[in-house]
């Protein structure tokens, strides 16, 4: 049996009580009545509450105390007459496995959780809370695992070939401002899924969006091709538009031929190409007036320790 529980056991050691305890603790004052206790338990669907006077934890009142009182048929009385005094507390920084052991040994249904340094109550722990906490953590780890399995480095390791790359293309319709940017936004999602480093995604996002918008604004359409290989991403943006007569000039910050209506939409600062240049490790612009423009940029994706 043991090995099957390996992962769960590991989690019980790894997780601290403070990671799974409830912090929005419902409490009751010691001079409240037992019928008030019944109402509170019912209202919150819980089976016990810490009894607190001011800041101080003085006891624990549970459904067991309530049943004992009900079956004794005594008149309504103050909670402090029926509660468990000086309840055993656990520390927020203890591993969950310790809490579980205490639940087993004591048979208690809940423990108030106190901060070790101040002794202040900061939460409450039930067996249900432990189950929830472990499941949450398992789910999170599962998701991370999924992303890791997607990671480019993994994909490339798993495929056997002398040369490997992922090739994705997008059509960019010209003058269509409603769909403008959709190639870049979709691509950004892919890059995240592929586990590319966030700072590199950021640079690719800027370069890609600026290039896409230029195709939308200045041409009747074009294509964007991404080639993702183990160490770099190459983005080639081609269009059959009017071309750029002086590339040098077009690269100058502030230089723009955008028409007034395009400027009204917030384009035309003449900063698109300079932004691309800043973000790409290598940029080549090949443009022929009347025939179109091709931008080729390369961004190296090496891990932080092998960067550039």
């Amino acid at each position, binding site marked *: 049996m043991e090995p099957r529980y390996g992962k769960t056991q590991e989690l019980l050691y790894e997780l601290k009580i403070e990671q799974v305890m409830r912090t929005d603790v419902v409490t009751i004052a010691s001079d409240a009545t037992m019928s008030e206790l019944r109402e509170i338990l019912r209202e919150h669907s819980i089976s016990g509450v810490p009894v607190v006077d001011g800041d101080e934890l003085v006891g624990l009142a549970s459904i067991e105390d309530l049943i004992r009182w009900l079956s004794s048929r005594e008149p309504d009385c103050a909670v402090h007459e029926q509660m468990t005094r000086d309840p055993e507390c656990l520390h927020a920084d203890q591993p969950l496995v310790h809490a579980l052991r205490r639940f087993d040994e004591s048979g208690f249904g809940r423990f108030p959780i106190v901060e070790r340094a101040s002794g202040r109550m900061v939460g409450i722990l039930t067996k249900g809370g432990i189950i929830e906490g472990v499941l949450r953590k398992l789910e999170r780890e599962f998701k991370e695992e999924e992303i890791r399995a997607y990671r480019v480095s993994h994909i490339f390791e798993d495929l056997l070939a002398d040369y490997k790359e992922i090739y994705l293309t997008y059509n960019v319709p010209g003058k269509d*401002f*409603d769909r*403008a*940017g*959709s190639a*870049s*936004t979709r691509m*950004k999602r892919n890059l995240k899924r592929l586990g590319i480093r966030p700072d590199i995604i*950021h640079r690719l*996002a*800027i370069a*890609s*969006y*600026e290039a896409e*918008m230029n195709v939308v604004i200045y041409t009747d359409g074009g294509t964007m091709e991404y080639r993702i290989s183990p160490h770099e991403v190459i983005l080639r943006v081609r269009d059959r538009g009017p071309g750029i007569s002086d590339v040098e000039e077009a690269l100058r910050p502030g230089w723009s031929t955008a028409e007034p209506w395009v400027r009204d*939409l*917030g*384009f*035309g*600062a*003449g*900063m*698109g190409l*300079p*932004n691309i240049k*800043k973000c790409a490790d290598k940029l080549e612009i090949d443009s022929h007036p009347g025939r179109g423009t091709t931008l080729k940029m390369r961004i190296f994706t090496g891990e932080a320790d092998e960067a550039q």
Partner: protein
Amino acid sequence: MKLSEIVAALDLEVRAGADHLDREVTGAYASDLLSDVMGHASEGALWITLQVHQNIVAVAVMKSLAGIVLVKNREPDEATMRKAEEEEIPLLISSLGAFELAGKLFGMGLSGS
């Protein structure tokens, strides 16, 4: 500072992305030129602008901005709201002009880039 705190403090109206106001705002940037925002806004920044066309949503997505505030009660286009909702970008409206709004945000402790 959480976006929801800013919405409450400056009495902003929420036009889209109401479920995503728990985002951390790390700064702010005011500009009506999209390429300027692409080049200079930092990730997690709140963007102050008077542009209402749906392209602003794509810019916010590409730059991972915390949200967009339209100034002077500018109403976003229908398509802008739809896209913002889809892309989970909070779209807010202020009655203040960009200068006053930026001043208030600066006063709350946010800075530029």
